[in-house]
């Protein structure tokens, strides 16, 4: 996995979580709970923990499991979360075909978008996180990095 931040590694007192899960949606809530638990320990706000981190990470993991790995038995999703008192940086890596995050994003707020069943995942990640980016230069699969500063 890439380093946890472009400008620094984990600082003193940071919590680091490295996990690898099968491409099974049933595995997602456990990962989310583990990251939220660490954000709570680092005194992120109630809403940051229960809404921003929880939903954005659910979306990133669901994308990796369902769209990236297509729920294949032989592919895994790797998660590295670094939390300290300043911010959360979490990388979600799949083993699927490369994709363009911007091209995949839709606008769910248009009259047509409002009535669509899909198309809200990337939108929600971007609204709930300070930054959402697909890291360049990954030799295999995709890494989506979510960053949230502690308010």
């Amino acid at each position, binding site marked *: 996995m890439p380093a946890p931040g472009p400008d620094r590694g984990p600082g003193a007192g940071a919590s680091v979580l490295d996990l690898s899960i099968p491409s099974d949606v049933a595995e*997602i809530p456990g990962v989310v709970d583990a990251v939220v638990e660490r954000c709570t320990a680092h005194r992120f706000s109630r809403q940051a923990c229960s*809404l921003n981190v929880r939903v954005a990470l*659910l979306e990133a993991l*669901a994308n990796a499991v369902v769209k990236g790995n297509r729920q294949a038995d032989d592919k895994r999703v790797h998660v590295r979360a670094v939390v300290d008192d300043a911010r959360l940086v979490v990388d979600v890596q799949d083993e699927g075909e490369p994709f363009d995050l911007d091209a995949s994003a839709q606008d769910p707020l248009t009259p047509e978008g409002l009535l669509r069943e899909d198309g809200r995942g990337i*939108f*929600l990640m971007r609204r*709930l996180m300070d930054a959402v980016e697909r890291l360049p230069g990954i030799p295999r699969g995709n890494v989506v990095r979510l960053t949230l500063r502690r308010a």
Partner: protein
Amino acid sequence: MSFQMHREGEITVVDVEGQLIVGNRQELKQKVLDELERGERKFLIDFSQTGYIDSSGLGVLVSLSKKIREQGGELRLANLNDDLKTLFELTKLDTLFQIAETRERALDSF
């Protein structure tokens, strides 16, 4: 996490316990569609016991709303917690659904 269904007069009430996410949304969809197929037309989904919903859960609600309306029925929601209200506001789905503060108000609104 599970979905409990019961009848209140003509209204089918669904309680969402825990979460409505990618891993269980199809279960909710199928349960409601089964009731629609049986001839039920008035549905209330109560979120008083719901922690969180993701985009696929929101999508299922949109899909169910369309299917129920196509059959001449109505879908209403009740008891969104603060996080869920924020989620509906961010996605503007608060403009698409009739959302009541309480189950009683939702039942009275049909």
